[in-house]
């Protein structure tokens, strides 16, 4: 039965790979709306609590945030380069690029955990022990609620991305990819770059917008 299934169902391999990439883009559309709801929460809360958001933004570590952005953008570059290499059939260079992407990703996660450690140390987690007593303490707590939900979800997506990356590296290492067939590399690449895009939006919302210097 299996052979009828595969040939009958998809007329050509391009047909099949097309659907997988379309499927991935559709999945990314759901992620855009998923984070979109959080961005609406940011927009509305900041409209009411500009003072509290500015006060809270001042206590975020923009240096760590900026380094993390550089790390993630570079990891996307490395992945894109890897994809360019496998299109030439160069598995060795693909492996090098993907490993670099993985290292940069792990560095991002570590830096983030470090930043969280500092945040907890400074009692910036909203709730009873919240440290900031500036002009609009409620607004500052709302900012950090947004901050921890946003960065928490982003870290989960990063870990999922690192898992997928490891899977692609494993299959590349086993020689599963060639210049003609490297569908998995392309699909995981879309997901990885999307996680980078989410960070590119979170970064200004947390560290940059409304920061009073």
């Amino acid at each position, binding site marked *: *039965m299996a052979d*009828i*299934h595969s040939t*009958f*169902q998809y007329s050509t391999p391009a*047909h099949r790979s*097309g*659907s997988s990439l*379309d*499927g991935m883009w*559709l*999945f990314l*559309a*759901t*992620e855009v*709306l*998923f*984070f*979109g*709801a*959080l961005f*609406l*929460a940011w927009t*509305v*809360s900041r409209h*009411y*609590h500009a003072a*509290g958001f500015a006060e809270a933004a001042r206590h975020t570590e923009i240096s760590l945030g900026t380094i993390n952005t550089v790390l993630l953008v570079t990891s996307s570059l490395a992945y894109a380069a890897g994809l360019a290499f496998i299109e030439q059939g160069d598995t060795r260079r693909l492996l090098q690029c993907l490993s670099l992407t993985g290292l940069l990703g792990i560095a991002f996660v570590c830096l983030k955990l470090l930043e969280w450690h500092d945040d907890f140390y400074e009692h910036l987690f*909203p*709730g009873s022990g919240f440290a900031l007593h500036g002009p*609009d*303490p*409620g*607004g500052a*707590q*709302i900012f950090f*609620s*947004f901050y921890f*939900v946003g960065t928490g*979800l982003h870290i989960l997506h990063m870990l999922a991305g690192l898992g997928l990356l490891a899977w692609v590296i494993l299959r590349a290492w086993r020689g599963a990819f060639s210049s003609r067939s490297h569908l998995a590399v392309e699909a995981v690449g879309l997901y990885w770059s999307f996680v980078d895009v989410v960070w590119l939006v979170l970064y200004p919302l947390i560290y940059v917008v409304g920061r009073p210097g």
Partner: protein
Amino acid sequence: MSHALDATAGEIEAATVRDNRDNYLTDEWTVWSWLATTDHKRIALLYFASITFFFFLGGAAAALMRFNLLTPTGAIVSPETYNRLFTLHGVVMVWFFLVPAVPVTIGNFVTPLMIGARDLAFPKVNLLSWYLFITGGAITLWALFMGGLDTGWTLYTPLSSAYAKGYVVPVAVGIFISGFSSIATGLNFIVTIHRLRAPGMTWYRMPVFLWSLYSTSVIYVLATPVLAMTLLLLAFETVFRVGVFDPALGGDPILFQHLFWFYSHPAVYIMILPGLGVVSEIIPVFARKRLFGYKFVVWCSVMIAVISFFVWGHHMFVAGTSIYSAIVFSLLSFMVAVPSAIKVFNWIGTLHKGFIHFDAPMIYALGFVGLFTMGGLTGLFLATLAADVPLHDTYFVVAHFHYIMVGGMVSAFFGGLHYWWPKITGRMYPEMWGRVAAAMIFFGFNLTFFPQFILGYLGMPRRYHSYPPEFQVLNVLSSAGSTILAVAYLMPLFYFAWSLLAGARAPANPWGATGLEWQTPSPPPVQNFTSTPVVTEDPYSYPSPEAIQMEQAETGEARPNG
């Protein structure tokens, strides 16, 4: 009877005559063959069993509520229990019955058959979606029965995040997981309809039901993620006692309502669009006539899906939103009614000069047209700003949405069930019992919910465990109706079961309908088609009325059987 596919018809006729032992049901019969199946037909049946369970669970809660409302003091159950009952009723009926209902049962079964494909684009994702649905359902049921939830299905903060004593976070987790089941289903249908249509099946040669499934899937995919984030923010605020909605911090509880309704209004169109598709399939068959204004009907489904995202503010006209935004949302809510209006007029146009047969599916479809229009028009009452002020959160709203969801959608679901039953099971259902149940449901339904319109105008609030004595007579009428409805809904259980054992064997095309799913045996073989069908004609290519009339003159039979 026209054959869109003369070449393969002969072959298929032969197959039906040869006792079709090798269909998808008899292929293998082990527990593992069911629990690990990636056959869209079997997954449809797994979903059908789960959906039916949740429907009767929610219905039992509704029956208990109606008994409690027999007396003004609500003596049957305590306020705590009543609040948990209507929350369970709302949560189970919305997320575990009607949102998945038609797409995952009839849609899953019929879509590959309609487009001439072997299966959906991602069969494993299809099975995953059922497991996500079951897991979400199990967690929600565990929570609703362990401690229950007293926030209503709307889960408004700060009641849900700070004051509710019930199991808010587990229910949120359950719904969250079932949300991914919706996304998986939507994603699967969209890619399937784009990529796996049989050769020759252009978009305008596709049955209307697939257009409505496509539109429903667009909403599944784009609205559910916002619900996921809303539930996540709610869980964060419930666990850590602090969050963006918390009024003690200056947070905005109305922001929760915006995020909730951004999903929940499109969700009600998830519930109705498949029904609109089923009715657009049934009416042409039993009127023996081409669907009136095919292009208008299909693009109206797409328009409903898109505009449904612009209107959510009409649930918050008295919640404290700005007057300016209320006016904009009211105007958009009128716009969303236009595509529905076009559909209703086109169904009636299809009846014009047809040859109308009154089989059970047609009775449900005609009932749908009537009750959907009544439900929709009362929706326009609520969309009119100054009219919503007295009617909001009263039984008028309860009547509005039950007219559309129960009177409309459940009738369409039952109509589709009766229409495709022969194809799914290879058996005919008892026609007489089908019509009796349909009529009883129609009567019981109206007796249950029409009095609620009057109660709503008189100001009886929603979600009240007890009420002033002057509302008792109308409540007794409504409760009487609900018992008739409950009995009427139990009837199909019996005669469908009977038909599985002793029903007449169904031919490939019992209704003489066009469409690829009727060109393969009932029940279909595992791979659906022996060879890829080629589509050459429009979907509802019935002969012109004159041709049928001439044929009628010769044979004296308005519809030659299949």
